[in-house]
């Protein structure tokens, strides 16, 4: 472990030349901007900038891409908090509490909560990565299709923690998200499923325009009749920074979420979005906060942001050590590595040790640059609270429309956003929670793919889900989580 820190410092020394430092700063700025703009995520940013790296040496190129990938996690929370339009999918849960806190007049506090949690959460992820990169990668390898199925089943139970006061409405919301995720194409057979002959629907409904509509456009519809809460108060950095009490409230949340996020980030296909959802759900279900989650709790913002930054750091373990990308953006990074003649895997740390550790060191520097930039921009960004609803409504509507179009580069994204916005506004108005819908939309395809692959490999025999220890533990936890509320209700009735 100490040896790894020595290698990390070696990587930092390589970074400390003017070219690499400029690339880190540039990558951080670009990453934050890309993350903040709805409809454009780290995948698009890295894909667009990959050709620019052809003239760089491999170290500088991967530093740029890794920095952009990591910094988008910082940027995603900005539009989530200020406009209620998550810049990227991991920021969806941040929008729940971030925007609520903004509407209470504490936009600066919300932004600081997100930035601070992102920094510490990311740092935790990176430290775990440095100490255990090979072990983390091997840990991820233990998760085959059967293990992922049982783990995702457990994760789907966490949806029940977001359901709210009315279980029936929460379940309907969950099932709507699950049903929408089945449209387009069968992931196993590659055949069209429920596309109704529409070529645009062949790729299914994209998450970005769906969430822009569900969260952003429906919010615009609400804003039209909401009281104008704009004020001319100047928000200074001093108002935004935590006091001692707030620090004590959020640090345990950040540490917990950072550790959880790192391990979720290591799992193949899970990603920062799943980490952010899971962490938020656990915080809501298992831990108390001064303000209820969903009403402007800094604990909610911290749980989501710490987890998603830690997950993006954790995803580098399987990428570098095994050559297995954890997400679409990871695939771009993997493509870049192969393009520059580098072979990810255990030998990368032996044959190209300087490169691998330089990549990890870049994450540390990106984390520091991002927190400085994001904190410095806070007073300027919070000026948005002085803008009247009469300007915000058309402005956010335009950003929703353009962001949704950009996500799919076609009018299909615009149509998705439009329909999702109307549907989710009506659902929200009549008390149907949106968070379970978005969570099940993300998790259900992963669950179906893993389950069907596992059963295909076992020739349809469901006993495959009882073979490994990981499966048994996950199934046990699933049944406990499922039965606990019922048992609690029965015990409560018996006591009466």
């Amino acid at each position, binding site marked *: 472990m100490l040896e790894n820190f020595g290698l990390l410092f070696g990587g930092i020394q390589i970074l400390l030349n003017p070219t690499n430092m400029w690339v880190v700063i540039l990558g951080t700025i670009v990453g934050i901007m890309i993350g903040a703009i709805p409809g454009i995520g780290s995948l698009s940013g890295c894909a667009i900038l990959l050709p620019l790296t052809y003239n760089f040496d491999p170290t500088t190129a991967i530093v740029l891409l890794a920095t952009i990938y990591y910094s988008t996690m910082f940027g995603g929370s900005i539009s989530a908090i200020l406009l209620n339009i998550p810049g990227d999918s991991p920021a969806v849960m941040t929008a729940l509490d971030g925007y609520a806190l903004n509407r209470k007049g504490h936009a600066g506090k919300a932004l600081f909560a997100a930035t601070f949690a992102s920094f510490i959460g990311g740092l935790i992820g990176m430290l775990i990565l440095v100490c255990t990169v090979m072990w983390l990668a091997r840990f991820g390898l233990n998760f085959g299709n059967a293990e992922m199925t049982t783990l995702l089943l457990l994760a789907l139970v966490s949806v029940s923690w977001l359901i709210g006061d009315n279980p029936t409405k929460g379940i309907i919301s969950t099932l709507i998200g699950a*049903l929408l995720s089945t449209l387009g194409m069968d992931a196993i057979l590659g055949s069209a499923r429920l596309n109704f002959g529409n070529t645009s629907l062949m790729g299914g409904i994209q998450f970005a325009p769906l969430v822009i509509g569900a969260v952003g456009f429906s919010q615009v519809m609400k804003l039209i009749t909401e009281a104008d809460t704009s004020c001319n108060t100047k928000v200074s950095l001093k108002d935004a920074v935590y006091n001692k009490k707030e620090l004590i409230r959020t640090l345990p949340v950040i540490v917990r979420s950072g550790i959880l996020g790192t391990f979720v980030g290591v799992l193949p296909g899970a990603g920062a979005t799943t980490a952010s959802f899971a962490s938020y759900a656990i915080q809501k279900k298992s831990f108390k906060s001064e303000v209820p989650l969903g009403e402007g709790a800094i604990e909610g913002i911290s749980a989501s942001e710490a987890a998603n930054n830690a997950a993006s750091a954790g995803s580098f373990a399987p990428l570098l050590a095994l050559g297995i990308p954890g997400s679409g953006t990871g695939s771009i990074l993997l493509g870049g590595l192969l393009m520059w003649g580098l072979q990810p895997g255990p030998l990368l740390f032996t044959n190209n040790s300087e490169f691998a550790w330089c990549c990890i060191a870049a994450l540390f520097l990106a984390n520091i640059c991002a927190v400085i930039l994001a904190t410095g921009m806070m007073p300027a960004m919070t000026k948005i609270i002085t803008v009247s609803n009469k300007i915000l409504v058309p402005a956010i509507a335009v950003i929703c429309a353009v962001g949704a179009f950009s996500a799919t580069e076609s009018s299909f994204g615009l149509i998705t956003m439009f329909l999702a916005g109307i549907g989710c506004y009506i659902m929200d108005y009549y008390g149907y929670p949106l968070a379970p819908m978005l969570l099940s939309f993300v998790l259900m395809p992963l669950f179906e793919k893993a389950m069907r692959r596992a059963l295909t490999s076992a020739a349809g025999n469901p006993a495959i889900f009882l073979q490994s220890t990981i499966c048994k533990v996950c199934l046990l936890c699933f049944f406990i989580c499922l039965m606990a509320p019922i048992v609690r209700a029965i015990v409560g009735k018996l006591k009466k």
Partner: protein
Amino acid sequence: MKKAGKYIVPVFVIAAGLFFAIYCHTHYEFYSPTQGPMPGFMPEVIGALLALTGFLALIQAKNEPDKELNPKNFSIVVAMGLVLVGNFVIGTLLSIGLFLLIWLKFISKYNWKTTILVFLVIMGFVVGIFKLWMDIPFLPGIVFEILLDL
């Protein structure tokens, strides 16, 4: 509308659930003894569960207080619908720009100076980031395509 509003979601959900369950049952294979769940499995199960829970929600809705949707909140829907149509006819950026101008001037009732200033800032951001930097292929619209062909 006042009394029927709370039934919108349950009725829609029942209809959608039944539609998807029946459609998947008739169009896709449900289960294979050797491969397990097939393409029709998940949507059929989810559709059936959706119809069932929709029915429960319909019963629950009878005891809920009536809640009326405010038509004012749908004015942006009408506007965005026109933007959607305009996107195909005159192009994405032009229809969005027109929406912005008309909304700021006639709905938000700002003077021309404020309207044009806000318009320039927002469209500057949109064109600068999405068109010039990201090179998103916005639609030119049928009208411009015809003009270009001429």
